[in-house]
């Protein structure tokens, strides 16, 4: 199975509000909020760390979950967020764009 890489879309706006991520789509200004787990994925989506590694390091270390199940859930979530164009997914590392940054 090939590795999957995720990166925050450079066109979104994002801010953490009381531990919950607020994300506004750059496509149509739709506002999303991410729960705690999704927020962890979002913050770790640097384009260079494989999703599998993110799940192992950031999810499985925090929550008592089955790694295979957690990875499957993370992939589903990543594809859903990519559908809204707030996350990029690729089987290759995603180079950082000039204007994307770390959401606080």
């Amino acid at each position, binding site marked *: 199975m090939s590795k999957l890489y995720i990166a925050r879309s450079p066109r979104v*706006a994002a801010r953490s509000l009381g531990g919950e991520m607020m994300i*506004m789509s*750059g496509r149509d200004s739709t506002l999303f909020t991410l729960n705690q787990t999704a927020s962890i994925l979002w913050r770790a989506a640097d384009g260079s760390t494989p999703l599998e590694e993110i799940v192992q390091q950031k999810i499985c270390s925090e929550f008592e979950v089955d790694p295979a199940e957690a990875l499957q859930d993370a992939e589903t979530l990543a594809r859903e967020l990519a559908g809204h164009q707030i996350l990029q997914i690729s089987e290759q590392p995603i180079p950082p764009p000039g204007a*994307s940054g770390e959401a606080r």
Partner: protein
Amino acid sequence: MSNLLEEMTRKALKLNIPLSVQLDLTYRCNERCVHCYLDHQDYGEMTTAEIKRLLDEMAEAGVFILTLSGGEIMLRKDFFEILEYARQLTFCVKLKTNAILIREQEAARIRELGVESIQISIYSHRAEVHDAITLVPGSLQRSLDAASFLKSQGLRVVLANVLMVQNVQDYQGVRALATEMGLESTLDPTITPMMDGDRSVLNLGIDPNSLPQIFREEAIAEDEEVCAIETGDDILQHLPCSAGHTTCYVSPYGDVYPCVQFPLPTGNVRKQRFIDIWRHSDEMNDVRSIRLKDLNTCTSCAHVGSCSRCPGLAYMEGNMRGPSSQDCEKSFAKTGVPSANMLAKKRGAANLVQIRAIPVPASVPGAGAIA
């Protein structure tokens, strides 16, 4: 306001987070709009480095929506550097501009940087009216060209119209123009007093008697981030507006105010951290303490639960816990029911001019009523 944004606003309120900030980058402008409340001077604007430090502090404080305005933002030579930095900090950036300096290249850059929306001031669909308000010949065409460039980039463009005596006949024309161009439009009948307190500019405001018809025909602009916040079932416990609660304003000199229309100084980011002003300024906390139940006159008003009373306009009238006459007129225009403030003024005025007849004994020669 979307349900989710409303929910986030309530959460920000609970956590005391300034969710939305308007930052004016400059008061300089390349137009000279007759109704403008600014003086167009530069008394020492924040430098690029100071603005970047402020943006860092605002991101740290939790600011999500950042409106960059002025003056004319494009007159800052470092405008794109500031915008790029703001987007690196993942703010949701909105721009307010007259857009006359935006051509294809600038429009493309704005799109590339992921700006949420651009609000462009358009006062009429007729050049002779718009240009007579901006005092810049050719400005309508330049602004509309820019709107087209921005629209062709797929950006959300809003034509913002301020209603005044000069353009009161043209609001439908502006709306039709926006529709034709595939843009949004807003209409606002509020004229703001000059920053130095000079209220003569209010003479440009339209006749309140025209408002009812306009309200019937048009949706009047209310900034979605600056509207009243419901905090429970008791109307009198509601917050009058979000100024100082989830929003604030920063001037080009670093002065922080509860809102762009609320010139109560609360601190300066050149001397204090933004978050310290937001959390600890006595003035900000005073504004925050106001509830509808605390408002003089307004508590007994028929419109108390529905009025869009602006505490900043009330402050400029002399009392931030008092009524705002412009909003009283709006409520009256919407319903035909005079506000408590209007009735009180009428009574006061009546008392001032009324001269009662003084009864004089009939035996006095030439006796009669004085009035």
